[in-house]
Every structure is written in C-alpha cells, then in structure tokens.
C-alpha cells in the first residue's frame, strides 16, 4: 500500500459538548492527500467547532482525530505532546482565520510575518529568510515593495493573502481554513479564490474549508459535508451535492442562493 492510499487525516466519531450545549455530534470522515473538503452549513451548525476539534485547539468530548505524520506513522493527535503538536502546527499544518488579525502579527512587517515560521524551525540566515518571504509575496500577488510594511496598513484582501503566504511558507500538507473569504467584497473574494485554487492544486494541499458560501465550496473543494444542528446530514462529491442535493435542508441551502 503506498502512502497516498492511507488517509492523511481521519476523524472518528468526533463529539463536542459545551456543558449541555451541543457543539457537534459523531462526525467521522477521512481526508486524503491533495483533497479539499468543504464543510458548509448555517451559522451555529458546528462548523467552526469541528475545525477546532480537528486542529486540536479544542479537546473533543468523545471521538478522536488521527493524522499521518511526515514520517508515515499515523498517530492519535490527542496522544501527541504539546511540543509535537506545536511543531506540527508550524510545519505541516496551516490555519487561515476568517479575521486575518488573528492569524498575523499586526505590528511586525510582512516579511517577518512570513518568515516567523521559518525562524521557528531554525532558519538563521537573514538573506535567505527575506528571499523566501519575497518569493511568497510574489506568489500571493503582494507588491514586494510592501515587504517592510506591517499588515496594519494593508487592506483586508492583502491581509488575507499575507496570512495565506505566512501559512504556506513551510510547505504544509494540510491547511484548515475558517471562512477564508468572509468579510471581503465580491471582486476581492474572486481574486482570493482564484489564488487559493491555484496554490492548492500547485502544491497538492489537502484542506478543510469551513464556509457558509456555497460558491467557495464549489470552486475550491472536491468533496462537501453539509452540517445542521451539530450533525453531518449529507456528504458527497461537491458537484453532486450542489447540483442534486438529497436532504431537504441541503436543497434549501442550495436554492437559497440568489441567481446572479
């Protein structure tokens, strides 16, 4: 069995209760290398809870998440030590926040923002760090003259692109995205999606994208998971679910998009 036959990430009966309040219940799926999974649903349906469970930012009430590390061993993430988990987070994983201010250091320059992960894994050559940061700014279409400006003076779209560069600089295999296009205007959204789609295919990234925007799901993802009230009600290939939804709620969701 080759590496690509073994899933990268396996969620197994993930459940989270906030006291008596349900976050999400019994979510199971496998994600393979290079595969993009979209999680859609209205607000409060447990999408973000699920994303935080997968990325070990929250501990599940029940169930587990297993991940295949770069050395090929599949490990239960709850069993990893904190140092290992942090290492995973800054090398093999990326996390794109909806609010770029959460994912960036707003007061340090764009170059240092991109370079931080490199320095954290032991890069100690200023010229090379800066060179790599410049390349990444090019890739996410930020003018290289802006490398010494802090993201505080960037526009919303630029911040989001900088956040993506910061996450991808260590060539992660898995990226979590929480509403990556939320709060951006339509044309900026389109550019960002175009960029993301290019990067995902080019780098062969696996991604879990949480969104309430079905257009994002259609453009980016291979598979889709529809959530409602903390549970997964429908899964399938993206075009299949979007063009021929089976569940009444999915039908409602799809039909609630205004035609352009």
């Amino acid at each position, binding site marked *: 069995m080759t590496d690509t036959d073994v899933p990268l990430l396996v969620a197994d009966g993930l459940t989270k209760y906030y006291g008596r309040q349900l976050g999400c219940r019994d979510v199971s799926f496998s994600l393979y290398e290079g595969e993009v999974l979209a999680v859609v649903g209205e607000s409060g349906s447990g999408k973000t809870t699920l994303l935080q469970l997968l990325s070990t930012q929250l501990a599940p009430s029940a169930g587990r998440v297993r991940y295949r590390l770069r050395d090929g061993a599949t490990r239960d993430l709850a069993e990893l030590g904190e140092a290992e988990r942090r290492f995973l987070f800054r090398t093999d994983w990326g996390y794109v926040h909806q609010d770029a201010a959460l994912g960036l250091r707003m007061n340090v*320059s764009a170059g240092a923002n991109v370079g931080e992960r490199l320095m954290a894994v032991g890069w100690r050559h*200023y010229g090379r760090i800066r060179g790599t940061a410049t390349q990444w700014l090019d890739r996410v279409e930020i003018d290289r003259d802006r490398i010494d400006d802090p993201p505080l003076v960037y526009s919303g779209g630029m911040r989001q692109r900088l956040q993506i560069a910061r996450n991808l600089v260590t060539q992660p295999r898995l990226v979590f995205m929480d509403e990556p296009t939320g709060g951006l205007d339509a044309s900026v959204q389109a550019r960002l999606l175009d960029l993301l789609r290019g990067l995902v295919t080019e780098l062969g990234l696996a991604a879990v994208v949480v969104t309430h925007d079905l257009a994002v799901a259609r453009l980016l993802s291979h598979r889709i998971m529809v959530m409602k009230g903390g549970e997964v009600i429908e899964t399938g290939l993206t075009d299949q679910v979007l063009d021929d939804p089976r569940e009444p709620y999915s039908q409602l969701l799809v039909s609630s998009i205004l035609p352009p």
Partner: protein
Amino acid sequence: MNAPAYNFAYLDEQTKRMIRRAILKAIAIPGYQVPFASREMPMPYGWGTGGVQVTASVLGPDDVLKVIDQGSDDTTNAVSIRKFFAKTAGVRTTTHTTDATLIQTRHRIPETPLTENQILVYQVPIPEPLRFLEPRETETRRLHALADYGLMHVKLYEDIARHGHIATTYAYPVKVDGRYVMDPSPTPKFDNPKMDDCAALQLFGAGREKRIYAIPPHTRVVSLDFEDHPFEASRTPESCALCRADDTFLDEVITDDKGGRLFVCSDSDHCEKRRGAETAA
C-alpha cells in the same frame, strides 16, 4: 521607643532561606526564571529591590561588597546601596573590582575580568526577554518550556529590516547553556561576551517581577544573531578622555550647551586604576 534592630543584612533568616532556595534552583537550571516571594524593601521598585534581596541572601560577614550603577561607584544608586549594607550588615565595602567578593551591578559588567571567588548580582527591571513580543505571561512560560524561540528572531529580523543591522544595543537576548533564552538585564551588548564562560557566579534578581535567574560559572552564553548578520559587541569608536583606553565601554558626557562633549570610561574603577598606573610610571 528604641530604634528597630535589623537582622544581619536587613532581611530575616526565613526570607533569606526562601531566596537562597530560589537561587539554588536558578543555578541548577541556567537561564530559567525562578519565581520567588519578593519582599518590600526600603527603596522604590526600579531601584534594585531584586538585586538587593539577592545580595542580602548571599552576603556573609567576611564578604567585601562593591556596588556599581552604570559602571560607576559614585552614583546615587551605588552609594546608597553600599551604605545600606555597610549599615545593616557591617560588611567591608570597596570600589576596587579586584578586592570585592560580591559585586552588585546595574547595567554594566566590570571591565576587569572576574574570578571564581566573586559573585556578580544584577538588578533586573524586566526579566522576560519575550515580554514585548508576547504580552501573555502564560504564553511566554509555555514558549520557554517548549524552547519555542522563533519569536525572538522575529524581533532581530525587524531590526535588520528597519535599520539594516541589528539595532538592539542593550538587553540583547542570549541563549544560556544551549537551552533558555535570557534577558541579560539592560547591560550594553558590549558586555554580552563577558558573560560567556565567566569564572564568577552571575545572579539576576528582579524585585517587582519576582523572578531570580542565574548563570553558573563557566557556562556557555551565546548572543542570538543571524548567520549573515553576526552578533557584534558594539562600542563608541572613541577613546576615554581621562585614561585614553580604546577598548572599554564609554559614557558620553555633555560639557556645555554648545555641543561640547567628551567620552569617558563608564567603569570608573577601571579608569582610575589605569590613570594610577600612568602616574606611577
């Protein structure tokens, strides 16, 4: 009412034992900040309450004490702390680095190399090197625990991006014994190399922040840098107007309001010794 009788070196014995335990732990884990129950001292925070407590705890009746402030023996802080211990402990005091067994310092390391019979006590205002990069104490402790120091280099990167070179000139971060990143208190980075493989025991006390840390004798202390921007122990490219030394750390003294100024050694004892040798010759 009688004047209050103080215990030897002001602090009571239980307090000293508590501080000594913290010091022992600090020596056992070089560069690690050990929390301790800092006491109120008869001086304001920022005037060396941490250093004074450490000094009081390690001081013995046979010790000879020297106190320097910015390298000088005759500034207010140095004079008053020296008098404080002369009064409360009755120990001998000196201004000569070579005669002292215990040296409390603010902002400098003496130019004369220290020996294994000496202890250097630093007054530390802010012990946490990551403080201005990461405001949460819980998070900085975690970063230390996991040796997650990428953030420290972000600061140095910013320096180079902004100024073309590492512009941090004091409180320059060091890595102690290959493990903990430490703030060497606001000493100029000129003094950083003196910490490396130093024969004397170096103790750091932060009174307001309630932390003690230490560098045991002959410990490796490396200043953080980049391969293509190596650490440089910078000094003003002048020589001392009094003793003409060109290898010491200099203070700039403004002499009038017409732009007149001169540079003198910040280590007053070292400067005097050099001038004494000159007149004798």
